[in-house]
């Protein structure tokens, strides 16, 4: 779990009537996808990124769950931001996040029991996903609802695409399949050569390696260095 300090709320530029997708608002979404990515740059939410990325399908469900939770908790906290007593704001944030997470977990149990069994504890652990609490404290407490939704979408998808990429490589190399479609078997049957699956990839170590490579590529492109 990362303990780094949270960034200051971004100053909202006051315009008479701001466009629905103004430049500033677009940046709210696009920044976390790339140069301000929660996983690769802020190094938040690593725990679940390691735990649930063995296969694509649970990773996709987890992504949807995280996007849902971060968007709606951002919205709710932003709506309540002027009535929340600042001394108990973390507890209030926690209560909102926990409620949303429990709802997701209950819905999964009712309608996708298979996934509920696979993801089990990890859905509950979205509560402790630093990205969610981080966005609430850093953004939603000081910004309007619509901006907060955009910010939530940005951070949620920033998290989602990274773990989906990690899961893609881990499932391909570790289990020889994508979304449980057996790619390696198909290659063996049709092209006639057998590829051995890599057991390292189904372990957490595999996620560390792929995550490391993604961060490497991203930072060598963006020129980002740790201060």
């Amino acid at each position, binding site marked *: 779990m990362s303990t780094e300090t949270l960034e200051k709320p971004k100053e909202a530029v006051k315009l008479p009537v701001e466009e629905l997708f103004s430049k500033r608002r677009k940046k709210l979404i696009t920044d976390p996808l790339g140069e301000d990515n929660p996983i690769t740059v802020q190094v938040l939410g690593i725990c679940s990124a390691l735990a649930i990325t063995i296969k694509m399908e649970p990773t996709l469900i987890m992504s949807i769950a995280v996007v849902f939770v971060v968007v709606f908790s951002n919205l709710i906290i932003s709506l309540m931001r002027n009535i*929340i007593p*600042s001394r108990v704001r973390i507890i*209030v944030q926690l209560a909102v996040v926990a409620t949303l997470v429990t*709802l997701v977990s209950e819905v999964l149990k009712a*309608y996708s029991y*298979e996934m509920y069994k696979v993801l089990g504890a990890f859905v509950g652990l979205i509560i402790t996903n630093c990205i969610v609490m981080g966005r609430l404290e850093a953004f939603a407490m000081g910004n309007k609802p619509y901006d907060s939704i955009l910010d939530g979408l940005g951070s949620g998808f920033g998290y989602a695409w990274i773990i989906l990429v990690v899961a893609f490589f881990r499932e391909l190399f570790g289990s020889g399949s994508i979304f449980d479609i057996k790619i390696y078997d198909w290659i063996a049957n049709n092209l006639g050569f057998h590829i051995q699956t890599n057991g390292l990839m189904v372990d957490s170590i595999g996620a560390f390696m792929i995550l490391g490579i993604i961060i490497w590529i991203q930072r060598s492109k963006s020129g980002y260095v740790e201060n």
Partner: protein
Amino acid sequence: MRQSNTYILLFTAALTIVVGGLLSLASQGLAPAQKISVELDTKTQILSSVMDRNELAKLKKDEVLNLYKARIQSLVVDINGEEVLKNAKGNPMIAEEVDISKNYKKTPEERVYPVFKYMDEKDPTQVDAYILPLYGAGLWDKIWGYVALKSDLNTIAGTSFDHKSETPGLGARIASSEVQNRFVGKHIYDDAGNLVSVTMVKGEGHTGLTDHEVDGMSGATITGRGLTDMLENYLSYYQSYFKKVNSGSVANL
């Protein structure tokens, strides 16, 4: 005003009520769907010990439930092979609702043991296979499953295993049909009629295995041992029931 203690108390109280109310509403509202999900999951697992898992996965929810209704007859017995008709609360005992993991905490004598009879498709009075639940310990956490015995109560017709957190790629392979199919056709009794169960050997790629051994899983010796123990333990608990069935003393068992 927003900093006063009264405001904070009122605010948190209101929040608690709203959040609590919302969650209990959701819990109540989703309970029926969740019950069906759990039921479907249990029944799919039971059926998958005698049926092809891939075929089963193609069926719709209702089809699985209908198939289960048509083909499975269940009952609950105790360690002495006597049928148990009432549960602890005095309600009718339902085999599908017996929680094997809760039962596991009791001594073997105090437990109840569900039996799922897979009936013949053409003659619904003939039993094709007896499906028994299993429960035990793997390397990291619990493992469980079902074993199906043919009507001779000796030949294994199929198995289905699952686990909570065995190592992916190693012990977790017990949940794959490849490993489960290794048990098919093996026998649990020796020629003298003693229970020997089926042992998963250490290592993988063995040839010349006996009638009571299956090939192991490379890198998952302890999970394999857990599987062997679980199978042997639970088969031994059903011995009295098997004797009753074989002697034909109780027709409806």
